[in-house]
């Protein structure tokens, strides 16, 4: 009887231990199955809309590309969660010192090894734009009062330079994720084609401007990358804020070309509020140009950025075609 009881206890223990094994196997299995779903995508951060768009176009669904909203709304300030997200990003894409688009980067803690200056490798020195007559003046510290010329950051308004940046992005992303080389390169090929088509459009518009003998003025130096992409000499006003209508008309009248040449004023954002007044008073064509600093919706691909870039040229092309002798 006792022996039977021993067997019974042994059998019970064996069953329980097997059940235990089976339960633990199920748990491990579930964990293994759950792993892919809990695995998060790699995160890439970009400091401006164009870089975000191009990075997104290159990585596709492989990674999430984030952009701190401080860039599009500086008054909102730095958000701690956004800063932490940037710190955790594998790669942080920025313009670079010659076209610094994010002065706020100096205020946050980032690992230098993850920061990529996309204007460093592929840009020539002549590609950068330094505005001598718009200077930042400081009067603090041991140095006393001093100033330095402003370096325009809006290089993404030039499709040729945007392509250079996209190459830097591609190289860095391949270095970070070597196993994705083929995918990234294929995606970049499409991006390159799109940028080249915009560059071709820029060439067409440049020829048209020359053929129509148009004088093009930019409302402020932020548009210089756009005008240089049209092979135009630098010709700009300093209307960073909306000027008074009368002063603006006077200034534009002074810049009006002599002879048969016609004037086109490219204006950035807020300056366009004076469009009708300026056109009426000076006879110039006033054309809004997007600085492409942000978009209302997060881009799914580079198309949003490229569409906005293309639209800038398309609008100018339409105006130029409409301006006959």
């Amino acid at each position, binding site marked *: 009887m006792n022996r039977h009881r021993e067997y019974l206890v042994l059998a019970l223990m064996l069953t329980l231990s097997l059940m235990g094994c089976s339960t633990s196997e199920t748990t491990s299995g579930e964990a293994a199955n759950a792993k892919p779903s809990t695995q998060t995508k790699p995160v890439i951060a970009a400091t401006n809309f164009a870089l975000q768009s191009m990075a997104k176009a290159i990585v596709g669904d492989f990674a999430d590309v984030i952009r701190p909203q401080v860039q599009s709304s*500086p008054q909102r*300030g*730095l958000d*701690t969660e956004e*800063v*932490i997200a940037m*710190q955790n990003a594998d790669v942080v894409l920025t313009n670079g010192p010659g076209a610094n688009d994010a*002065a*706020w980067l*100096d*205020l*946050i*803690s980032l*690992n*230098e*090894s993850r920061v990529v200056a996309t204007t460093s490798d592929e840009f020539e020195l002549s590609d950068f734009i330094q505005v001598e007559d718009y200077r930042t003046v*400081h009067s*603090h*510290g041991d*140095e006393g009062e001093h100033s330095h010329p402003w370096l325009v950051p809006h290089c993404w308004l030039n499709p040729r330079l945007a392509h250079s940046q996209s190459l830097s992005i591609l190289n860095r992303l391949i270095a970070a994720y070597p196993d994705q080389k083929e995918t990234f390169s294929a995606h970049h090929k499409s991006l390159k084609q799109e940028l080249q088509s915009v560059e071709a459009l820029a060439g067409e518009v440049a020829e048209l401007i020359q053929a129509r003998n148009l004088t093009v003025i930019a409302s402020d130096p932020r548009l210089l990358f756009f005008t240089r992409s049209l092979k135009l000499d630098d010709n700009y006003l300093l209307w960073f804020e909306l000027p008074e209508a009368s002063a603006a008309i006077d200034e534009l009248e002074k810049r009006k070309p002599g002879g048969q040449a016609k004037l086109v004023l490219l204006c950035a954002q807020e300056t366009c509020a004076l469009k009708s007044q300026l056109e009426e008073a000076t006879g110039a064509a006033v054309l809004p140009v997007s600085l492409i600093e942000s978009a209302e919706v997060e881009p799914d691909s580079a198309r949003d950025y490229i569409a906005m870039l293309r639209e800038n040229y398309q609008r100018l092309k339409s105006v130029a075609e409409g301006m006959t002798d």
Partner: protein
Amino acid sequence: MILCLFLAAVLPITVSRLMSSFEKGIFSRATATPAVIGAEGSRLDLALQSLYFNRKLEGTLPYSEYKRIVAAGDVKAIPIHVKHTARDYPIVATTNEYFSFRSLRFEQGRPFGVIGECVVGASVAAALQLKEGYGVLSDRPDLLGLAGDYPLKMKVVGVLEKQNSADDAAVFVDLKTQWVIEGFGHGHQDLESEGQAENVKRESDRIVALPSKVVPYTEIMPENLASFHFHGALDDFPVSAIIIEAPDVKRETIFEAKYQNNDRGLQFIRPVESLETLMSTLFKVKRLINVNTWLIGISTALLMGLVVLLSLKLRQNEMETMFKIGCERKMIATIQLTEMGIILAVGLGLAVAFAVLLDWLATRGLENWIAGQ
């Protein structure tokens, strides 16, 4: 006799244990810090500062050197800049990579995110009763300097777990925060804002800050963060040292070669080698103690032998009586040997126990003690 044995044994055992703990402690941190580059000068000072943050170095190297190393991508680089203190604890300016490099874990909070934030070591948190969200002021380097910069009130965003290392007694900040403390960067208050109405006096042509309303320190808050900026290029700002971690010996050697006979006033050191120089002096002292130990051991053994012989002589009648009542000589010898064994075991046991206790106490404060030197 027990006391005599204890006194004779306690010194060599304690010294030996303490020396080996000291050696282990100091070399484990040095071994975990394969190489360091810094400005030319004392190699030992550079090693001690990068390991224990306790030396003020005369020379610094520019931040651009760190960026150059990072851009080359051959080795991992972590900058360190130690110049100021906060409530007498060293402010260690670095990057967030330092925490993973030293395998430091957070008891509370997170790494620093923006300038003005800090992470405190466990000892600092305990001594100053700091928690996440509290503030800590940097010390003014020169109290008599009329033009001295205001201290910076740093916000504690993280507290590290206890490590029993120099990291426990440090306040970690981003390099940019340190540069603000040094005066390379600053912010501006908008005196015309509504929030400042109580703090200013409006005169006909100007706005004057009321002295009683001027806060005697600088604080970087979300409201004034955007106004902070640096004067000069960040690339030129100072860094005390750069910790280098190469993936293999070959790349470390190639990297070292770049710093040999360079004309940039920089030097490459291996902290282990620098500390070996320091330790060789200590080992000379240890050798002296070892000789002394042998001499004391021999004299104690002779003394013990004499005492035992005298004791046996005195107890001869007792032994005779035991033999006459039937106790074998072998048993008598066993009893005497057992007595001796007990005396030896208790004496030496007490000495070992004392040494272990002292070692345990010393190990707890060893790194901090080194850091304080």
